[in-house]
């Protein structure tokens, strides 16, 4: 219950106009803070939803694959530079962001993640790794201003943000596979 409340609170905070405007005014905050926080809000609130509609989730998201596919498609959409631009220009895109990310990403992510097998999880992880790396490259390297609403400098900052995330993801995976996970010993 606690989690659900904190999820709802987080969602409301993100909705407060000054918070929203401030986050969207800086590209890196928009993409790498606001969007993930929206997903997090959905994840937190999702506990209750998943319990309540457990039959629905068991039926349509039996092995977690449909849910995670939805997650991947929507998050990929939000990595497009155009999507962020349009969120600022068209209210229905903004609406889709605030509804889509918590409900269509956060909740299914929570439901799918624990249902996925190890290979599925690592596959998803290794899909995001090159995608983030590519985004880093794109935003750092592109000589033109991709978004109407953000300057080229902001683009570069976002690119470095992606690069740092990618680097941490690589480090995480390296430490994961090279540290011991055997069950029989100690």
């Amino acid at each position, binding site marked *: 219950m606690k989690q659900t409340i904190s999820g709802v609170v987080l969602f409301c905070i993100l909705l407060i106009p000054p918070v929203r405007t401030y986050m969207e005014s800086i590209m890196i905050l928009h993409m790498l803070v606001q969007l993930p926080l929206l997903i997090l809000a959905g994840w937190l609130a999702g506990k209750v939803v998943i319990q309540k509609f457990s039959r629905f989730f068991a039926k349509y998201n039996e092995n977690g694959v449909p849910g995670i596919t939805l997650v991947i498609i929507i998050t990929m959409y939000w990595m497009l530079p155009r999507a962020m631009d349009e969120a600022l220009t068209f209210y229905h895109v903004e609406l889709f962001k605030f509804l889509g990310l918590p409900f269509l990403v956060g909740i299914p992510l929570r439901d799918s993640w624990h249902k996925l097998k190890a290979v599925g999880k*690592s596959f998803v992880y290794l899909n995001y790794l090159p995608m983030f790396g590519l985004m880093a*490259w*794109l935003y750092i390297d592109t000589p033109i201003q991709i978004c109407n609403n953000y300057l080229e400098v902001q683009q570069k900052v976002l690119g470095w943000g992606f690069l740092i995330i990618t680097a941490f993801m690589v480090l995480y995976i390296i430490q994961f596979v*090279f*540290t011991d*996970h055997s069950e029989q*010993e100690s």
Partner: protein
Amino acid sequence: MSAVISEKKSRNNLVVSYLTVGGIIILAMMVFGVLMLLAQGGSLNLSPAAFYQFLTIHGTGMVGAAALAAAGVMWYFLSKYVELSKKIAQVNLALFLIGVVMVIIGVFSFEYASAWTFLYPLPAISANAWGVTGALLYLFGMLILGIGFLLFYLDTGRAIIKKYGSLAKGLGWDVISGKKAEKDAPSSTIVASTMVTIVNITALTAGAIVLIMNIINVINPAFTFDPLLAKNLTFAFGHIFANSIIYMAVIAVYEILSKYTNRPWKANKPFLIAWTMSTAFTLVIYTHHMLMDSVMPKWMLIMGQVLSYANGLPVLVITAYGALMIVYKSGIKWDMGSGLIFLSMFGWVVGVVPAIVDATIVVNHVMHNTKWVPGHFHMYMALGACAMIFGFMYYLAKEDSNVEEQIFDKIAFLGYTLGILGLSGSFLVSGALSTPRRWATHFPEWMAPANFGAAAGVLTALSLTMFVVHFIRYLSNRNKVEMSPESKKLA
């Protein structure tokens, strides 16, 4: 008992499918190779468009098919030690076939011809030779193929971690550091599989980045990327992935030779250190493809030379030496399986020589992108990696059926050996004569070796046909055995 047998049958079925698909594609690609050499030799009139389409399909197909067949070999032996998912191996095969179909349509129906290196920004800038559709079919086809292999290696990695605790233990680092006794070291199959899992997941990740990057650039050329970084990623992907083929196939050498000679081939400390070296070097030596980019940081290029030399050490001092030692005065019974496997070690070592020579920067200055390079990798891949795969085919046929080897097989063995030696030799001679690689036509003074190579290629293809015939005989024999009432009861 019956469950065990049927389980073994169905596992073998999967490996057999991998090998059949791989073997047939390799044979078909040989035909394209011969046609290209004939065109270069002036004996066949081939339009440049057709030539470069053949070039693209030949490179892509050979690497892909050999990788698939080698993955089958790895899967066969690795599944004896750890629990692998059959489903994922099937998905890999299915995605491979889908990818191959897309690549074929892209190349032949939409005239896409960027060579298998698809060096950015060539897919998008083709001087109107091909359009967006062809490029996208090819690039997405490769991506799908890559996804299949990624799943495959994620599964092998998962299985190794589950059984041994971590990839570090799969490489035997606890034995190297002395925490564990040498006798408890992971088997050579595990070590090799761990190495391949590490390098290929890295390669496929780099490949995914560079493929999607090219896709973005093809769809919207306004998005441009750094061509030097693109080149680094392309070769990181291509070199590692192609290189991994021999490291997967060599598992067959370890397993089969020790069985034939009745001598153990255990992983000891030098063996483990050698494989750790191979893991590290394979990941970083791709820079020897970029020695002619003087804008690269100089230290990286010097490392490219130094580490390429060093990368010869594990095979020269450990693996090939071990193979020679295990065969020496062993009273081994030579048949097609053991013969091809022994030949493959020869092919590997002899094929490494021109590579090391060419990795020398001053040599590379006048030999890079000449036919010297295909001279190296035809020997290394066809006489090395593919001989391992075909040797494994004969071994499997013997294990799994009662089909017998005939005199034709022995003739084919000789034909294959001489064919590849002739083919690679002709490439090396061309390279020494400064003939550029990837040229649709040659000047008259460069034609003779190309024609000789084509003849050698025909001999190779005919010999390989004999190998494939044997494999098909095994398949039909095996099916008959399956259909007999006795085995029905078992299943």
